[in-house]
């Protein structure tokens, strides 16, 4: 069952690097991350790659496999033919530290720019009452494992360094939507989504949704509804207010 596969892996550090060719053993049931680990153990002990869970739960092993953003631990070798050369490169939107490891601090910076969950001052821990149906929308977004592949693929910043300061990326625009749809969040998030976090840059190409390993419908369920709310709000603030009051009262009952 085992065979020798051809791998081309991007190697380099400090802004320089190139693709290097390897021939490496592959066994039944293995995933791309296993092969990278085999390279480490047998040919290139200092090959850098991030990983933790090896089960698609932590979002550490994001890379580009044949040009597509993928989790290395969830990409089975059986999806390639045995004579295919498999090219593995780091995520393109973030600066490379070494080999497959990129500097993803952009994402942590953006996370800190989104105002946190803001519950009403008078609700004590233990008093929260929410219906399953009211939490499900935000729960979908909280499945996010922060692999940052959606931010990596989004064309607004993929080759446009200049947009980075003004655009939170799908991951964190979705975080705004998540908080906005949280039954107990009382902060007003619509204006800032548009004006500070760059919701307007998104032209709903859905590339982010396509790469999401958690199959979160980022565009349809987070970004488009946010855009609609921003528009509603602009035309009719009362609609917004009504929504907010309605939402709170159902959650209490």
């Amino acid at each position, binding site marked *: 069952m085992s065979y020798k596969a051809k791998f081309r892996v991007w190697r380099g*550090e*400090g802004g320089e690097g190139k693709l290097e060719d390897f021939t490496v053993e592959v*066994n*039944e*049931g*293995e*995933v791309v991350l*296993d092969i990278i680990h085999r390279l*480490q*153990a047998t040919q290139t*002990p*200092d*090959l*850098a*790659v*991030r*990983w*933790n*869970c*090896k*089960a*698609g*739960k*932590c*979002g*550490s092993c994001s890379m580009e496999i044949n040009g597509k953003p993928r989790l290395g631990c*969830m990409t*089975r070798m059986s999806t390639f033919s045995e004579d295919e050369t498999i090219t593995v490169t780091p995520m393109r939107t973030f600066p490379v*530290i*070494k*080999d497959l*490891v990129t500097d*993803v601090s952009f994402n*942590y910076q953006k*996370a*800190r720019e989104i*105002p*946190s*969950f803001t*519950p009403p001052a008078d*609700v*004590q*821990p*233990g008093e*929260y*009452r*929410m*219906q*399953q149906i009211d*939490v499900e929308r*935000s*729960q979908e977004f*909280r*499945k996010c*494992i*922060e692999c940052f592949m959606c931010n990596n693929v989004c064309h607004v910043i993929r080759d446009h360094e200049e947009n980075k300061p003004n655009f939170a990326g799908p991951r964190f625009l979705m975080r705004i939507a998540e*908080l906005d749809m*949280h039954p107990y969040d009382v902060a007003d998030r619509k204006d800032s989504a548009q004006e500070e976090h760059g919701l307007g840059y998104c032209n709903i190409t859905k590339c982010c949704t396509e790469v999401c390993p958690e199959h979160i419908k980022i565009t349809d369920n987070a970004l488009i509804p946010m855009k609609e709310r921003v528009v509603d709000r602009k035309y009719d603030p009362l609609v917004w207010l009504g929504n907010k009051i309605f939402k709170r009262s159902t*959650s209490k009952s």
Partner: protein
Amino acid sequence: MEIERHEYDVVVIGAGGAGLRAAIEARQQGKRTAIVCKSLFGKAHTVMAEGGAAAAMGNVNSADNWMVHFRDTMRGGKFLNNWRMAELHAKEAPDRVWELEAWGALFDRTKDGKISQRNFGGHEYPRLAHVGDRTGLELIRTLQQRVVALQQEDERLHGDPEAYIKVFQECTITRLLKDGDAIAGAFGYWRENGKLIVFDTPAVVLATGGIGKSYVVTSNSWEYTGDGHALALLAGAKLINMEFIQFHPTGMVWPPSVRGILVTESVRGDGGVLRNSEGKRFMFDYIPDVFKDKYATTEEEGDRWYTDQANNRRPPELLPRDEVARAINSEVKAGRGSPQGGVFLDVSSRLPAAEIIKRLPSMHHQFKELADVDITAEPMQVGPTCHYIMGGVEVDADTGAADVPGLFAAGEVSGGMHGSNRLGGNSLSDLLVFGRRAGAGAAAYVNGLAARPQATEEAVSAAKAEALAPLERTGENPYQVHQELQRTMNELVGIIRNAQEVTEALEAVGKLRERAQGVGAAGSRIYNPGWHLCLDLRNMLLVSECVAKAALIREESRGGHTRDDFPGMSADWRRKLLVCAASPDGSGVSVEEKVQPPMRDDLITLFDRAELKKYITEEELADFDALVKE
């Protein structure tokens, strides 16, 4: 070369549930706090936890309360637990879960809008707060977002988000520094560029998690190299209960590259059953005497329990993990295993497909993606996997303080709370309860200090020399030594042990230790995993030695320690803890026996005499009788 230096009041090593909760507490008490972790912020092992966090909120069954939870925890740990920890844990877990909700967590709900709770092995009532089967993700993300919220507050107040709490990610600590007896700092390196770093701090909270990477088949990630256990030993603290390792009964067995990855216990909690190759639900044959009156004896009764818990007993698939793991082991050994060497775990014939996908989405996904198995249509194959270490740093229950001044520990790296076996769901709640307590303990310790301890320059240079040594050697590849250690521990100090094999393991570990002195790492200091592994080997070897030495001394079987040469549980051994210590250079682990203090009167009287009789000595029983008479 310059060493980067930072000064903090409290340094928390580890950014899992325990570390983050500790750091939040220290910061909330006004301490300048650093969080140091080996992987990215938000990726710690806690993220992988699936089933839930146990807390007796009584949302699903109002008969639940802290006393029932306490009893279950003690039973699960076969009465070896530090009862004060078990008590605090049971009492405080609900508040810790509710607090998460106030920080933005969204747990699954009951019909009346409260936090829903699910069944798990060893818990008498539905008790696990959960979000589908990704509870750990919710927990870590909520704590991460709480840290961010505090940083936003600090930015408003002080103009600097990192003024009071800062995360040093992808940074590994290799030594704790001392001033005389007391903690004075921590030494480490940045994984990203290999530069060295020193934290000057009077208080360190260890929250580094477990040791599973010393085993081949494990549900644990590369981070689990026992660093905190080793750092504590080398700093003069003690480890207890190191012989108790939890082998989770259900890890994936196929394909080989995912062997060991966890299949959550929720599969069984939600109705999944275990069968052997003959199609038999074999767990009915493995109900031990101590649990006979608590578990169903027929399939019919077990099945009825899912809908009517008041009038039926629970199915034996939900026995504590050590029991189920041993049963699976025996079935496979007896030749009744599945084709790939496990047994069958079936939920497909028990629940409608849609319900399975709703309740167990990540299991459905994991099997589909990694094993080509559709769990809504066919059974899974599962077998035991090294999952959790009950042993760890000996701490004071109330403050998390180790017996080195300034050193604290919480979470999986600490020992005592779970006794000889941890119940599912009791770890996530443990992280929150004792993470908070250790953070508060560290803050109080710092408040009480007259002067800040100062690390000596010699200690810093020694730590530096130790860290850089592998880069200067062109020795053996560290991966080979690591693989051999994993095989040794798996085969000789695994789920079933005996004196001869453990002795063999100790010899092998000794030899590997010599080889580890010579391992070298090619390449630069920039993100060099070979170099990192060379340094991790010291920790794994030290911890493995503790596990093996304690396993050899404890001549009984209890929880996560099964000796086929001493198959019975001994009431005399129950009173004794094995305490490991080491010299500062890590040579020579010594193990001593220590007597556990007897349970407080109001706690022991929560149990029936008939139950206690199964665990405690005649002498203890006489004391109990006298107490009840009073």
